[in-house]
Every structure is written in structure tokens, then in C-alpha cells.
């Protein structure tokens, strides 16, 4: 029998195997389509439809009313602040945990994760208990005599930022921890051995080598922060309006989803633009050597 006769058979078998592998992610793909793509498509459709058919009024309203710009600015500036704080607090924390023995590290990570186990609402109210006028922090400092008047810690941007930071921090610490943990410890030792102080080693070796983890964590935190609703609603005391709150308001004020959808879509588009922008910069950096 000629050697080539079963080539077709083998190729068919390979194709069949590939198809079987494709079947594995199929449920996930379908689910993504149903719970993500379809609703966004509907949002998109609805935002261009008014009582008289096609309309841009939902978008012109956003452009014409300076309030929307302000809300977008608030949303992004809070999210950026929180991302920066998450990096400043989370990086050292992740680094510290990564240096602990496995068991202690597991306990510390567990503590970092505790916030995940309680509802967002509970955590937010817990901050209120701490931060409000007659809350624990003010009571403590009044008792110490450090302050005469209670400080305004809650019901403003400060309180909102703290409450949100607490909620998003694990989203930064976990990828960061994974990134640091996967580093070859010898790299840091080598840096020290070659004369780099811990600070120098941190900036010249640890940070550059963990940039992917840092960016992943920061993006996660940033994007998650953009969509916050409950925490600014409660801790903002009405002073802080983020996009998600305005989306909800619009749904009630205008009694239709169009006004809400347009805002949600704008947020989505800006977020995606930032996301791809950062990815592009990163890829260029990686491609262009050092």
C-alpha cells in the first residue's frame, strides 16, 4: 500500500480533534454572547431611538449639558486617584506578602480577600460607622483632644475614595502578588549582590519585571472603579455623582432607557479606548526592546 493513502484520514482526524477542543469553550462563548454582547447591542440600539424613530437627542443632551462632562470628569478623576492609591498601597503589600513563608502568605492573602466575603453594602456602611461625624475615628480624636470639631470624613469625596479603595484593593493585590511571586527571586538577589540598595533594586529590577502584573491590576481597579454606584451613593452624601449613578437617574427621569443607555455607552467607549491605548503603549514598549 502506498504511504500516502492515509494522509487524508490523518488530516480528517486532526480536524475532528480540533473541533472537539472548540466544543470546550463553547458554553462560555455562548454565555458571553448572551450576557454581554446582546445587552450592549440593545443598549446601543435603544440609545438612538426616540418616540419618533432615529434620534441623536440622547447624545446631544450629553454634549450640551456641562453637568455630564463634570460627572465624567468626577468619575475618571476618582477612578484615577483610586488606581494610584491602590498601586501605592497594594504594591508594597503584595511585595511584602510575597516575601513571607507560604503559610503566613496564605493567611495574609486570606485577610486581603476578607472584603470579598462580605457584601459591598455592608462594607460601605462599615466605613460610615468609622468615618461619620460621631463615628469611631472622630470620637477617638475628639477624646484625644487632637481636634475640637469633628472632621468631615464621610459624605464627601474623601469618604467615597476611602470606601472604594478598600473594595478595589484586592483586585490590585492579587495580580500583583502573582506577578511578584512568579519572579525569580535570584533576580532581586543578583541586584543586591551587584550593589543595588533595596530601593534601587525595587525600581530597576522589581518594577520593570512586574509591569505586566501591575498594569493588569491597575486596569482592573480602574475599570471597576468607573462603574461604582452604591459606595459613592452612600459615602458621597450627594456630593459625588459618578456615571453609574447618573445612568440610574436618567433611567428614572426620562422614563426610558435611551437617556441611560447613551451615557452607559459613552462610558464603555471611553473605557475601551483607554484600555486599548494602554495595551498599545505596552506592546510598543515591549516590541522596541529596552
Amino acid at each position, binding site marked *: 500500500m502506498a504511504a500516502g493513502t492515509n494522509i487524508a484520514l490523518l488530516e480528517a482526524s486532526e480536524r475532528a480533534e480540533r473541533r472537539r477542543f472548540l466544543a470546550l469553550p463553547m458554553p462560555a462563548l455562548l454565555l458571553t454572547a448572551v450576557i454581554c454582547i446582546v445587552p450592549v447591542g440593545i443598549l446601543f440600539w435603544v440609545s438612538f431611538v426616540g418616540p419618533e424613530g432615529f434620534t441623536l437627542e440622547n447624545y446631544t443632551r450629553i454634549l450640551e*449639558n456641562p*453637568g455630564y462632562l463634570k460627572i465624567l470628569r468626577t468619575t475618571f478623576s476618582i477612578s484615577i486617584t483610586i488606581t494610584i492609591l491602590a498601586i501605592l498601597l497594594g504594591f508594597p503589600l503584595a511585595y511584602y506578602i510575597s516575601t513571607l513563608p507560604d503559610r503566613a502568605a496564605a493567611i495574609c492573602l486570606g485577610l486581603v480577600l476578607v472584603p470579598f466575603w462580605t457584601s459591598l453594602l455592608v462594607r460601605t456602611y462599615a466605613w460610615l460607622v468609622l468615618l461619620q461625624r*460621631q463615628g469611631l475615628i472622630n470620637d477617638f480624636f475628639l477624646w484625644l483632644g487632637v481636634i475640637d470639631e469633628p472632621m*468631615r470624613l464621610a*459624605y*464627601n*469625596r474623601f469618604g467615597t475614595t476611602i470606601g472604594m479603595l478598600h473594595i478595589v484593593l484586592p483586585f490590585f493585590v492579587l495580580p500583583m502578588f502573582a506577578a511578584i511571586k512568579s519572579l525569580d527571586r535570584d533576580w532581586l538577589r543578583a541586584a543586591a549582590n551587584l550593589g543595588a540598595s533595596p530601593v534601587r533594586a525595587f525600581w530597576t529590577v522589581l518594577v520593570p519585571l512586574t509591569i505586566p502584573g501591575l498594569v493588569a491590576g491597575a486596569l482592573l481597579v480602574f475599570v471597576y472603579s468607573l462603574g461604582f454606584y452604591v459606595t459613592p451613593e452612600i459615602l458621597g452624601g*450627594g456630593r459625588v455623582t459618578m456615571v453609574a449613578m447618573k445612568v440610574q437617574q436618567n433611567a428614572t427621569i426620562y*422614563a426610558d432607557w435611551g437617556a441611560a443607555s447613551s451615557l452607559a455607552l459613552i462610558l464603555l467607549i471611553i473605557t475601551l479606548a483607554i484600555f486599548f491605548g494602554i495595551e498599545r503603549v505596552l506592546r510598543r514598549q515591549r516590541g522596541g526592546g529596552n
Partner: protein
Amino acid sequence: MNSGSSKQGIWKFGAPAAAVVALLSGGALAADSLTIANYGGSYGEAMSKAIWQPTAAELGIEIKEDSLNSLADIRAQVTANAVQWDVGELTVDECAQGAREGLFEPLDYDVIKPRGYDQAALQPTYILDNTASYVVGWSTKKFGADGPQTWAEFWDVEKFPGTRGMRNSPAQNLEAALIADGVPLDKLYPLDVDRAFKKLEEIKPHIAVWWTSGAQSAQLVKDGEVDMIGIWSNRMQAVIDDGAEAQYTYQGGLLIPDCFFIPKGSTKVDLAMKAIAVAASPEIHANIAQYIPISPVSSEAFNTGKIPPERAKLLPASPENLKVQVWTDGDWWAEHGAEVQERWSNFIQE
């Protein structure tokens, strides 16, 4: 989906589900059962005991209770032609809005036979039932009994220094600002929006919290987070009953009534009309005040003997208290709500 009604098209997504629910809840008892819907929660429970159970007994029918969130729920059912509720209850601005959109059946006042209601309470498609009031409240720990007695005093930061809270909504706050600025109660509507916002700018720096839910406002009083607050009377009374050191005044209070209506397309309009007649009758109408510090709006309800004078003093719509307050104009808010709300969001942003 025909052209020009794409908005309805969206609501049609809910139609099949609504139809199934309608089928399941229909059946043999269809003729002698009704479904009512209100905001639910503790208010819904009180309404059930005070109004709907007695009404069901009176008519010898079964009344099922459901809860809704806003006019959007009614709109969804009506536009999808899958109405599950026979009687609905919403606040007056939403009722006015629903009436403008033609979402309600006309009411037949020959069947309802209202007694003790103002003419303004009896609208073609809805009828006011209970009311609370947006009032000035204060901490007695801070001010004793001599807290701010009017909106003008609430605005007076010299005479009444301290932290303040107000509802994060233009409704009632515009009215309060105008009253504080000296507009007489009977000249309030149509609201001078510019003037109101100008007055609100004055107080804005002194507002520590713009509250968003009734529960939150109660908590603020309880925790002593604010020294003065614009608050719903029923919430305030409940906190005081709970032992909070606080007081409030009906002076310049802004009455925010709820109302009954029959969603357009209900298959039991006649029975629903009879149920509203019973529920709105002073004898049953008066029951609600025994459960929660909410007031019936019919003056006759105060003559049934079911509301003792000391209780009446605490209720916003008692004849005595009515004199110093003003009714929220649902129509004005239905017309200007969206526009004012946008302006409010800009105003409140820091």
C-alpha cells in the same frame, strides 16, 4: 413593531413573561379576585392590614398584593398589553405623569362616592389616598425644643449654626427654598426655578449630607450626623418613637400624597373601582394612621373616631396641620421634572 413606536418595542421583551404570569394568576377565581401593587416593604404591610384586608372582607373577594418600584413598571405592563395589576399606588408626581401618558383607566366617581376629599384630590384617572410631608426636623440635643421652626430658619445659619441634611432631589427642596425666600404658600406654583436654585446655593455649603433614601435620613437623625434636616414626617416620627432626641414642625411642610389608579387594560375595571371605593371610604381610609404615622387625606377620616386627637396632631393631613402646609403639585412636577432634575444634578455636583 410599527414605525414610530420603537420605544414600545423594547417593552415588548417583557410581554411573553407577563402573559405567562397573567395566565398563572388568572383561572377560576378570576371574577372575584384582584391584584393590587404598591411600594411594598413596611408600608405595604401596613396597607395590607389597614386597607386591603378589610376591603377584601367587605367585598367578599380575594386581594393579592404585589410590589412595584416606579411608574416604569406600570408603563411596561400597559404598553406590553399585559396588565397584571388592577389597582396601583404611586406618589402624586408619578400619578400625574402616568395620567399624562394615558396609562390609567378613567375613575368613575359615581361608584367611588368620595367623602371629605378636596376637589384637587379627585383627578379624572387617579385619587389621592395617603400623605406624608417633607418637614423641618432638628436635634433636640442640640437645640432643645427651640429648633428652626420654618424653612426660613432652616436657612438661617447665623441663628442656627450646625450641620444640615436635605433630600438629594429637587422635588420639595425647590418649594422649601421658595418658602424660605418668602414666597407665600398659596403662590408657590408655578415654581420660580431660578429663584429657588439661587436660594439653594446659599444653603448648599452648609448641607453635610444630601440623603437619598428614607432609611438613610432616619439613620442620620439617629446617629446625630446632622443637627437639622429636611425629612419625611413619617420617617421622623418613627425615629422619635424609637427614642431619638429630635423634633419636627409641620410649619411650611410640603405634603407628598400617594394615589390610587387603575392601570389601563385591567380586565377587572369594575371590581377595581368598587375596591377603590371601599378603600377610599373614610371608615377604612382612617385605618392607616393606626399602623404608621402616615395620614389619610380625607378630612372625614378624622371624624370617624378611629383617629384620637393626640394621634391626629402628629399626622400631616389633620385639619389643624393642613393649615400650615401646602400640597405638592404633581402636574407641575410631571411637566418640569426631567428638566429640573438635570439642573439639580449639576447644582449638587461639587
